[in-house]
């Protein structure tokens, strides 16, 4: 075991996969010499050369579209979109092309690409460097959507994504790159795409979260524990496919569900979790499945008081949990 930052775990996964499989290539803006604007691809250009670590022109639709083409002709591209906020020009390539290639060709073509991108707020990134984009993409059949929380998961899930036969959108919370650390096994491993993980067992309510919100939920659970409220924290980690079994089993134990996400509340991914619990776990519920999510303004406003107002934090989660337990 080694203690690694979130960022290093992702870097290591890329390095190992590129060493293991010569068909793996990395492409994106500034991923080469600079090593990415966050430093995730640091050193890959020097280790694997410019044919496999490609500094692309500034064009996101091009990055994803080229990756689609590479993938049908023998390469395993890992595309980096510099910020999730800038993925939108590639929406058509992801939705209409990558996600539908297999279905529309009756399994004749697959699209084994990974699209990595940093998302999320709390870094003074304002409207265009803070967005959560998972709801747009988790809506799309044919695409897998992964949001790791622990460094070990980041590494294992990314390695699994590179080996996956289908397109995977891999979302990395940018605030976690340098602030979250954790133990990562030294030996070769992958983490399967699909299953959720229970990060903290509890009996009084279940908190469902992913990415940075797992971190905040665990802190909230800690505080709640001191008050005698035992919260179970479930790290959803794969949004599509969604592990409804683990989610429903947790609610069966705790009878209360709080779903936490950073994205705008309306139409956000947490609504899918809430609906699943309402439909399939109704008889186990002592309170309505409840969402705690970002306010419905267009992304995170810049100024510090605005950002603090927007972001879901441990105290806000603890308050929502208390209210739910008291229901």
């Amino acid at each position, binding site marked *: 075991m080694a203690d690694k930052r979130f960022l290093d775990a992702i870097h290591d996964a890329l390095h190992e996969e590129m060493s293991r499989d010569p068909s793996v290539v990395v492409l994106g803006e500034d991923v*080469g010499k*600079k090593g990415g604007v966050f430093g995730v691809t640091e050193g890959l250009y020097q280790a694997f050369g410019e044919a496999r670590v490609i500094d692309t*022109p*500034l*064009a996101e639709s091009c990055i994803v579209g080229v990756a689609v083409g590479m993938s049908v002709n023998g390469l395993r591209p890992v595309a980096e979109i510099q910020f999730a906020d800038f993925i939108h020009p590639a929406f058509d390539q992801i939705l209409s092309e990558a996600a539908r290639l297999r279905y529309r060709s009756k399994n004749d073509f697959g699209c084994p690409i990974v699209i990595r991108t940093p998302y999320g707020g709390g870094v*003074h990134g304002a409207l*265009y460097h803070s967005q959560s984009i998972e709801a747009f993409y988790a809506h799309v059949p044919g695409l897998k959507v992964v949001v790791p929380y622990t460094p070990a998961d980041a590494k294992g899930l990314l390695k699994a994504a590179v080996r996956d036969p289908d397109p995977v959108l891999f979302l990395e919370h940018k605030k976690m790159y340098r602030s979250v650390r954790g133990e990562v096994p030294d030996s070769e491993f992958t983490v399967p795409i699909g299953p959720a993980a229970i990060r903290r067992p509890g009996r009084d309510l279940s908190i469902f979260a992913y990415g940075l919100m797992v971190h905040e939920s665990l802190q909230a659970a800690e505080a709640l524990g001191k008050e005698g409220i035992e919260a179970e924290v479930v790290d959803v980690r794969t949004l599509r496919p969604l592990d409804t079994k683990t989610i429903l089993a947790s609610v069966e134990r705790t009878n209360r569900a709080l779903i936490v996400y950073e994205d705008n509340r309306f139409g956000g991914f947490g609504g899918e979790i809430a609906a699943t619990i309402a439909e399939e776990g109704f008889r186990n519920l002592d309170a309505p499945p409840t969402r705690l999510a970002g306010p419905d303004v267009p992304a995170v*406003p810049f100024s510090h*008081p605005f950002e603090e*107002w927007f972001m879901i934090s441990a105290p806000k989660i603890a308050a929502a949990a208390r209210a739910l337990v008291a229901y």
Partner: protein
Amino acid sequence: MSAKSAKETTARPSPGKGEAAARGPGDPGPAGMLEMFYYLCLARAVDERMWALQRSGKAAFVISGQGHEGAQVGAGYALDRELDWLVPFYRSVAAVLMKGMPPAELFLIQLGRDPDPSSGGRQMPGHYGHSRHKILSTSSPVATQVVHAAGIAYAAKVRGTGEVCLTALGEGATSEGDFHEALNFAGVHRLPVVFVVENNGYAISVPVSKQMAVPTVSSRAAGYGMPGVTVDGSHVLQVYEAARAAVARARRGEGPTLLEVTVPRLTAHSSDDQQEKYRPSEELAHLRERDPVRVFAAELRERGVLTPAKEQEIRARITREVDEGTEIAEAAPLPDPATATRYVYAEPPDAGR
């Protein structure tokens, strides 16, 4: 918009149309040159203050235009600053100053304060906009604004307003589909728009050689049925001459121009970037030779336009304006989170001011 900054704005020198006509086309005359020099130095001083605010921990982030001022002042001087539109990008410090935003407003934006006229503290620094000055609000995704500029020009044409629209972007942004789509539309409709590409050789770390296979951005103009010109942004008067021709052409109804201005990027991409990683030290060592402030000052001294007394007067004025602007911004309140849910949908136009 506070009354104070409005007053500052109107106090700014603005050449009357009659005066320009008396000098003959294309000759800014000594007063015009000194005005350009003033804006060049003002933009640099504002920019340096932004970095100082960031380094002292008062600002979270800076992205600005040191080295790009020559391109912006030369092009900006060719506009009718009352009538014409500016669709800027994050390096357009000199351009928005020329268009009438006083230094205090740029510092309010830099510090994310409530009276920030562009977004009330909602956007990151460098995202300019101001309807009264006909400066369109800016987002972060690059090249999106280029298409808006074509739309503004289309509206100007069908409404017969006589306006010209000038938009600016980096050479990296020309790789986006939006750039192609905008120039194509503008070419088809012969729109009164000038596309200014401020080519500083890099898109963050990516050199222009990895951005495009052609030696100049302007050579692409042929594909859109418009003239393409490349000029050296260290030479303000050359930029002005090229921009003047492009604006005049647009105003005559003859259509758009792609104007590429080569500029040095004198700083890192932003305060989050370490450029030593990807820029040769040899290049960094010689960067200042292309500094438009230096080049233009030398040129004006040689022409006898910039005397030591005049220069001192201009620089003293700028120091005063930048200091005052900083004080206004630092004293301004941060936004109240209770207002954070406002302006998602329409409200009366003056509700936010």
